[in-house]
């Protein structure tokens, strides 16, 4: 079965005038299967955000190729993707519901049924009572939940998440992590999740991609043998510590 997403020898070099260049990524080979939850962990500058930007089409690789179900990545694949950023990036002039519906408006999908779906998603993340509020009235954790709903409304096959919980406090973070897994178990999607928290990486993932910087390379891909659904007890499981330790050693 062809992988949903594959990277073959992908590299990205940024050229900075006048003569400098930075090799952000080098020789990335990775295959992501349909329905997998893959986390990417590594220190700053290891190219993890660059990797996500390559998939989303924000930038193009300087070498190698990225393919979706065997076909080289092209503009039409954007419909299959959704992205959640570190900042909620909500439109402050629209209500919460309007923000969740933004992708539908842009992609020209029916607004009627989309409205019902948006409400359903907001209910799923616990924001049923905030549907008509403005983003400015919500805390950052709540705003990030809205941005997750926005990413899910187009029912993407691939969900790209760039350290979505990094700006939140630890308690909110764990709450949203569990919420994300709940949603993911209902609507199986392929997720590429960037984090610099090893604990988060192991807790969420089927596989953890460990990256090292300068230039950005994949040091190793660690399989997480924990059962699903993941529970808090798993944090103290032996397999959990084993994976975490392995990752620590790779990043040391």
């Amino acid at each position, binding site marked *: 079965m062809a992988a949903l997403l594959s990277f073959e020898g992908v590299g990205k070099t940024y050229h900075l005038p006048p003569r400098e260049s930075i090799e952000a990524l080098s020789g990335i080979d990775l295959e992501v299967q349909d329905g997998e939850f893959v986390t990417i962990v590594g220190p700053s500058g290891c190219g993890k955000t660059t990797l996500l930007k390559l998939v989303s089409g924000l930038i193009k690789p300087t070498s190698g190729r990225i393919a979706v179900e065997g076909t080289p990545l092209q503009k039409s694949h954007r419909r299959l993707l959704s992205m959640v950023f570190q900042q909620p990036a909500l439109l402050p002039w629209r209500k919460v519901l309007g923000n969740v519906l933004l992708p539908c408006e*842009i992609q020209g999908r029916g607004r009627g049924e989309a409205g019902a779906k948006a409400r359903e998603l907001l209910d799923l993340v616990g924001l049923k009572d905030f549907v008509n509020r403005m983003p400015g009235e919500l805390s950052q954790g709540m705003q990030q939940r809205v941005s997750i709903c926005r990413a899910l409304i187009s029912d993407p096959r691939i969900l790209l998440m760039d350290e979505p919980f990094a700006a939140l406090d630890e308690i909110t973070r764990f709450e949203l992590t569990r919420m994300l897994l709940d949603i993911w178990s209902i609507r199986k999607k392929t997720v590429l999740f960037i984090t610099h928290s090893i604990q988060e990486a192991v807790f969420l993932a089927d596989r953890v991609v460990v990256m090292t910087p300068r230039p950005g390379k994949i040091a190793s891909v660690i399989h997480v043998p924990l059962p699903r659904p993941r529970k808090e007890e798993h944090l103290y499981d032996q397999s959990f510590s084993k994976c975490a330790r392995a990752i620590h050693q790779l990043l040391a």
Partner: protein
Amino acid sequence: MNGGRKRYHNHDLVLTVLSLAVVIGVWELLVDLLSIPRWILPPPKDIITELYRSAGYLWQHGLVTLGEILAGFVLAIGVGMFLGIIIAFSPLLEKTLYKLLVISQSIPKIAIAPMLVIWLGLGLLSKIAMAFLMCFFPIVVGMVSGLQSTSRELLDLAHVLGANWLQSFLKIRFPAALPFLFSGLKVSASMAVVGAVISEFVNAERGLGYSLLVTTSQLNGPLTFAVVVILAAFGIGLFSLVAWLEKAICPWAKSAGTEDRTEV
């Protein structure tokens, strides 16, 4: 949330009225105590009396000047926004047209006023043009800054969602630019009044600027000040109108203090 807002505004209003009252009171006292002649500095009560007495005269000339101000302002909004949009999206125009506009702003407008009369005649057109020239640049600047300051995340979002240029502009970049535009509009509002008055100084047969020339040449203190009060009212009125529109159109751009925040 609304209760909090109202209380804040009421306090604000009371303070303004109070401070005005103090100024007027002190003014009245000083003129009396120091026996200042009416034609140099009339006492407030004389000014108020004059406002009533010459209401017809003030209304007649006021309407002319108001027309010039509003026409110039509206024209400046249209042209200013258009120029702002094309400059914001064209690096070439930013390097050329924008720079030329900046240079043109350092030419003292009062020097241009007589030329406008030569080019556009003795009528209303030269006055409207002057008001326009005085106030269109802040609008351009506001529009350009606003459109170029869309956050990286919002731009990336537009890209990932597959928005085309028009969708990105209408749904994201333009609304995000509105607070900046309104800052420019508020500056412009005050300058439109100045523009109209200056051009009337240079040449006019009607209008409040013209009235000022007449009243000062006649050393009519109270009427001079009455005209100034009306002009000030125009300036405050236009500014307040823009500020009110800003609150109505961009409520999200309010600074913290009058909002509620809900916790997680």
